[in-house]
């Protein structure tokens, strides 16, 4: 199965979890992956697991300068992008009554603003006919105590796919949002209540 032979894919949040598993699979199916994450050590360890056809760029999707650096590397190395998996996400659990401004900002800066500019800044390099995948969450349509900022940010992501589908249709770039529920995300430990 070499469905992605020769494709250039960018994956944000590639150090662990869904991003890392996806990077492995994309490479196994023939793609070259450029992946990004904030933690250099974890990112390098992830790349070592994948071995071939992977490039790493350390960076934070919430910082526009870091995104510019990411895409500069992609441009120099490959010249274009076929697939973007905007997967980096963050979120802590905080009940409404106790949530701080920092909690709210961190969640929305990464999941909403970061994802918005991850996609916007990729567009000049995108090949017409490419595919953009956004990681939302099952929580985008659920009420979960303590998850209000996180779930609302993921609802925003789901909705981005609607407008962007229309904005990018003339370039035949497809946009889809994927809503996983995973119990293997190290952010949430093994068994500590609702997962998202």
């Amino acid at each position: 199965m070499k469905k992605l032979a020769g494709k250039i894919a960018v994956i944000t949040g590639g150090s662990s979890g869904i991003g890392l598993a996806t990077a492995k699979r994309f490479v196994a199916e023939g793609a070259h992956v450029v992946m990004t994450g904030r933690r250099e050590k974890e990112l390098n360890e992830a790349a070592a697991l994948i071995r071939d056809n992977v490039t790493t760029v350390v960076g934070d999707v919430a910082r526009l300068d870091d995104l510019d650096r990411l895409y500069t590397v992609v441009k120099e190395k490959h010249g274009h992008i076929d697939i973007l998996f905007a997967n980096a996400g963050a979120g802590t659990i905080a009940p409404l009554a106790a949530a701080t401004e920092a909690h709210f900002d961190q969640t929305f800066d990464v999941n909403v603003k970061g994802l918005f500019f991850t996609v916007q800044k990729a567009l000049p390099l995108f090949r017409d006919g490419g595919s953009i995948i956004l990681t939302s969450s099952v929580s985008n349509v659920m009420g979960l105590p303590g998850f209000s900022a996180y779930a609302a940010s993921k609802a925003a992501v789901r909705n981005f796919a609607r407008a962007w589908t229309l904005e990018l249709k003339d370039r035949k770039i497809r946009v889809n949002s994927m809503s996983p529920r995973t119990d293997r995300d190290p952010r949430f430990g093994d068994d500590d209540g609702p997962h998202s």
Partner: protein
Amino acid sequence: MTRLNGKTAVITGGATGIGLASAKRFIAEGAFVFIYGRRQAALDAAVAELGPNARAVKGSVSNEVDLDRLYAAVKAERGSLDIVFANAGAGSPLPLGQITAEHIDEAFDTNVKGTIFTVQKALPLMGPGGSIILTGSSAGTTGAPGFTAYSASKAAVRNLARSWAEDLKGTGIRVNVLSPGATATELAKQALGEAGQKAYGAMTPLQRMADPAEIAAVAAFLASPDSSFMTASEVAVDGGLAQL
């Protein structure tokens, strides 16, 4: 591609359209496929095209005796069953004000009752790793002129997967709904006409109707272990038609 190596599949409505495209794809990925439908000529033509890993059984999904014959044939030749694609569907448009009991029965007997018995009667042959796929439709979440019976029946199909995911807990059998948008098949031609098909293509964000092979690709994904963490889901393959 051999994701379905050694698997046995039943595809109702498998002689034409989305069902036939899926039979081709399943066989290309390694499966042995039984197609089922009411028209012998269509079944014969399909089997001739599909080759040695296909069998046809003639019958209606709204006839329980016919379904028993289908599964008896599967049991006799293969012993067990891995994949059921309950895809047979029917329906024609009729505006509110002109609806008859026969019109309602046409859609519900095939799409709802037919789907229920297609699946229920398959279960004794299925086990862990099994995958059930139901054909919904973008019409199940949208309204369209004259679509009372068809849309309501497809909304019902979407819901079947929810209760069944509960009923099938512990069996290792997954059930999901695949909801196509406007797809270039005989059914679309009959229900929408030439002008209607053009209009649906234009309404779709991807600006065209689907080729049945594009629906088949997702059916193969849902049939295979690649979708091993999916059950009770609805997967829209509609070019964005019902997603905005």
